[in-house]
């Protein structure tokens, strides 16, 4: 009888301790991120599927060639800046988590603040990029008539170019491009925005000394997991829209 009780007590599934050696919140954050990766995966794979089913797509080196304060044709330049910003904000986040482990309130505040700045910078870049795409007018030959189109969810001026009255003009490209581009980068931008909001709440709570009182900074860790996931997704968005 006594041995039976002792046996159940030592079983890791009999309660009283975490079988995975992590807190409930952190484990559930992992499972949320896993399910979220399937949401993003579904979007990106649907995009890939449509792209493989079409003979023409847009040439990203010409669609994404703007850079602030210059008229030059610079493929990949602006998006590299955005990528570097996000990677850097990921590092500041992991340093904030580390300072949390050391119970260093000042350190957490400093790195968390830099992470929030990075997130805001990324969102600003995205707003700039979207504005350029939507408002930038391009000559498109539609049914023998020249029209001026921006890149939107219903118009894609980036089809193969043709000669018309002695100069090159675009033709309508696959409509799916705008929907996928704005949909997926928008969904990612929404995640970044959510991350910035969460990190701001964490910064306020740190400043109030809530975590110091609680005795651990695990909330920073959970927010950090989310923030790194946002960076992880960007790696794939970057691959699918700008590199290949």
């Amino acid at each position: 009888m006594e041995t039976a009780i002792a046996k159940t007590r030592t079983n890791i599934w009999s309660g009283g301790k975490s079988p995975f050696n992590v807190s409930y919140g952190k484990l559930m954050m992992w499972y949320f991120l896993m399910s979220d990766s399937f949401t993003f995966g579904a979007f990106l794979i649907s995009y890939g599927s449509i792209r493989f089913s079409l003979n023409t797509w847009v040439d990203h080196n010409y669609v994404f060639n703007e850079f602030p304060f210059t008229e030059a044709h610079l493929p990949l330049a602006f998006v590299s800046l955005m990528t570097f910003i996000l990677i850097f904000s990921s590092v500041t986040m992991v340093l904030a988590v580390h300072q949390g482990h050391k119970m260093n309130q000042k350190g957490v505040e400093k790195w968390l603040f830099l992470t929030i700045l990075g997130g805001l910078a990324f969102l600003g870049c995205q707003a700039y990029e979207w504005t350029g795409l939507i408002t930038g007018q391009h000559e498109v030959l539609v049914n023998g008539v020249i029209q001026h189109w921006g890149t939107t969810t219903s118009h894609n001026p980036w089809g193969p170019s043709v000669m018309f009255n002695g100069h090159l003009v675009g033709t309508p490209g696959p409509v799916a491009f705008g929907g996928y581009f704005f949909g997926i980068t928008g969904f990612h931008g929404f995640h970044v925005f959510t991350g910035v909001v969460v990190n701001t709440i964490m910064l306020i709570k740190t400043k109030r000394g809530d975590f110091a009182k609680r005795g651990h900074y695990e909330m920073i860790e959970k927010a950090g997991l989310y923030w790194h996931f946002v960076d992880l997704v960007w790696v794939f968005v970057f691959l699918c829209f700008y590199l290949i």
Partner: protein
Amino acid sequence: MSTEIATPLPVTEADVAHVKKIWKAFWVLLILTIVELALGLTIYFIEMNPDYSDSLILFIKGVICILTIAKAFYIISIFMHLGDEVRTMILTVAIPSLLFIWFVTAFIADGASFRNLRNTDAGSRIYIQQKDHHAVPLEGPAEKREKKLD
């Protein structure tokens, strides 16, 4: 609200090593990204010549994909510390993620099959491929492209 700040734990040698590891991961990610960008620009310059080789482009794109997976692995294992968790917990995240292998393969193959069916009217005619899948070129390749469209 009292704002007195508790003294942080002392910095040990393990902390120094840990912070070093974080920065190392940052540099690795940065270098991988720069290599990816260099390869992306290589594709851009190769495609300026209208007679480029499709298989070479495909090869470079494949290398970029592998580098991206390496970056993802770095972010998950170093920044998200998944490598430090209990093995069974890692598996509960890793095993469902294996679905992605099927997910990507099946849907990309589906898209490719759809294109083939459309181009050949479900196999009833032969499709003659036009090597013209690029948007607005700046100069040069235009004349060549125009001829193909006739």
